[in-house]
């Protein structure tokens, strides 16, 4: 049986150790989000292991129609997590790739398939892990603010972790989460779709920026860097065109937002 996107998941008790699969986008473009993920997990008393050989889950090639190339990269990641610890991924999309698509990718190789299946059982999206495994309970020490939450399509429709993102934000007493129109709609990123079909992608992300801005929220948070870069990049481009110096729609990864609000470090 493949892992199902529909049946409710059984969660293990809080472990003493966990692996971090940070994703290539976080490693290269948003390392702070990775660091904040480590901080959030360590605060729960979990020792975080970052296998230094990790690169990318392979999704870019997998969804672009290059399965052999996707396999070559994904297969390297299969060997990185020998201990039976949970693998925490600060991205719904990359987590879904490892949890739901690795078994499909390695379907033709019994040994790798067994490995992929075993791994897929212990891959968790960060907010899912914080809520259901780590039992995240920390109080908000920040100033009152309003935000909007964008949940990636793979978080929502493959991991179900849109709900855990919302749960974590709802637990922050001074944060008001504004609801945008069509919150369930895609932001138009779609990996290489954004460069393969730039006009359609631009149309979708422009509408997304409009609905986020219409909420009046001070910032947008998301558990997925792909969507976040797409949305923030579009918003910044619109600011640039209009000659605005301060960003209309700033944003950050939910790990950074949660850490800032609950660590007492800053507002």
């Amino acid at each position, binding site marked *: 049986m493949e892992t199902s996107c529909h049946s409710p998941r059984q969660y293990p008790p809080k472990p003493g150790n966990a692996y971090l699969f940070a994703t290539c986008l*976080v490693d290269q473009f948003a390392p702070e989000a990775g660091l904040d993920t480590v901080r959030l997990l360590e605060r729960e008393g979990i020792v975080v292991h970052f296998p230094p050989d990790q690169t990318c889950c392979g999704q870019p090639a997998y969804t*672009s129609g290059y399965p052999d190339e996707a396999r070559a990269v994904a297969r390297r990641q299969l060997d990185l997590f020998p201990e039976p610890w949970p693998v925490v991924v600060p991205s719904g999309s990359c987590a879904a790739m490892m949890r739901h698509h690795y078994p499909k990718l390695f379907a033709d190789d019994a040994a790798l398939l067994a490995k992929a299946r075993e791994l897929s059982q212990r891959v968790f999206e960060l907010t899912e892990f914080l809520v259901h495994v780590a039992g995240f309970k920390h109080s908000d020490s920040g100033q009152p603010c309003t935000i909007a939450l964008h949940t990636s399509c793979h978080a929502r429709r493959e991991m179900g972790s849109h709900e855990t993102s919302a749960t974590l934000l709802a637990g922050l007493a001074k944060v008001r989460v504004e609801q945008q129109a069509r919150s369930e709609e895609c932001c138009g990123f779609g990996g290489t779709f954004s460069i393969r079909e730039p006009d359609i992608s631009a149309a979708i992300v422009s509408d997304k920026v409009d609905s986020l801005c219409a909420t009046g929220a001070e910032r947008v948070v998301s558990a997925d860097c792909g969507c976040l870069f797409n949305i923030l990049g579009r918003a910044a481009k619109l600011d640039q065109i209009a000659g605005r110096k301060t960003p209309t729609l700033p944003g950050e990864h939910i790990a950074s937002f949660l850490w800032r609000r609950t660590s007492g470090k800053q507002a």
Partner: protein
Amino acid sequence: MSQMAMPDPASAFRQRSRSAVDDSAQRQNFRSAMDYLQAKRRTQFPDEQELVGLRDLGEAIRRYSLANLPRLLEQLEQNLTANGIRVHWAENAEEANAIALAIARRVEARRIVKGKSMVSEEIGFNHAMQAAGIEALESDMGEYIVQLAGETPSHIIMPAIHKTKQAIAALFVEKIPGVEYTEDVDALIQIGRRVLRRKFAEADIGLSGVNFAVAETGTLCLVENEGNGRMCTTVPRVHIAVTGIEKVVEKLEHVPPLFSLLTRSATGQAVTTYLNLISHPRQPGEKDGPEEVHLILIDNGRSQAYADAQLRTTLQCIRCGACMNHCPVYARIGGHAYGTTYPGPIGAIVSPHMLGLAATYPLAFASTLCHACVEVCPVRIPITDLLIRLRNEAQAQPGTVNASLRGSGAARTALVSAIWNAWALIYSRLGLYCLTSWFMSRGRALSPIEQGAWTRSRTPLTPAPRRLRDLLKDRRP
């Protein structure tokens, strides 16, 4: 490179989708129509558990039908024949049209009135009839409008969804003699109905599609709202039904769950106004009904999908259109930009079998893989997995195991293959990855301002000064 000025399918698709995206009035039309249809569907499925159960049943029925397709088709033919309905088999569009034309010539038909049928669109039925000097008139209101305008349907359930009432009002004034301009939708419908009412009486042949063909009883089920389907299948002296070979189900009891999923998913209706069950031509002593009923069963590429266990799931489709109603791409570009009879996610997965991948591969890439279609598909077609499969096929090296379809490899280019090769090399070898990403971080000031298509609508992506792996190294004692 070709010397011809013909644009390749990918550029042609991009051109069409660009014009669609730039047409803000039409985009607004589609947006509000999609919002409306999504909301209507939601009201039909208030109980999540009931929906899960019904989808389980619908998926099981369709999978069962496909698993037994050859047997069920034979059984269908036997029982239809026993009921007096003549069955014809067509390999492709040309054969299907030739069969219909032969019937029309034999009964000396001059006019055909049509109920809504996407299969008739798929085979270019109207053109084939017109070329032979036979009038083929659409009687579904949306189809009638589209035909009057010389267009094609932009949606499989709501063919004229791209048109505003103002555009329809102007069209009626231009094309129908003696019509006054009105934007009153009810009045517009009355105008259309007046024209059509006469046509039903004058037609020699009524053409319809089929939603479900029941093998055990030899019954053709036709789902509709306007009553024009019933008129087409009862008033003219000959009724020709056209459908794809995948529409068969075994038992009559398989119809209600599929019917319920269809109407609730498509238009958010608990039931449609009409559900026609057609089992035979006019019987002795009956006062109405056609003297002849024909069914043309069309393959047109479906057996290519059928032959592959994964691609076979494409044929589970009951043509509700929910996938397009929920697709962020369809909502932005509308149906015509796809350039195929079936648009949206279902169009992207079914058209390659009908027209070949060489002509249709851009559609497989016209998706963000957001899974909205998968979430609403009433019979659980794994649409995104099929899109990925078609992307693989489109770029497969000819002659390899990955290339198994008509047109496989058509989208493969040396440049893109080389890029993914290099990508795989870098990301599967840690040393190379570390070197590349280290250079990207150190050289971030040199990051290009122009990053191709990305920066046309977004600011450039800039690597962080230090990678996470560097920050973590510093942090640890």
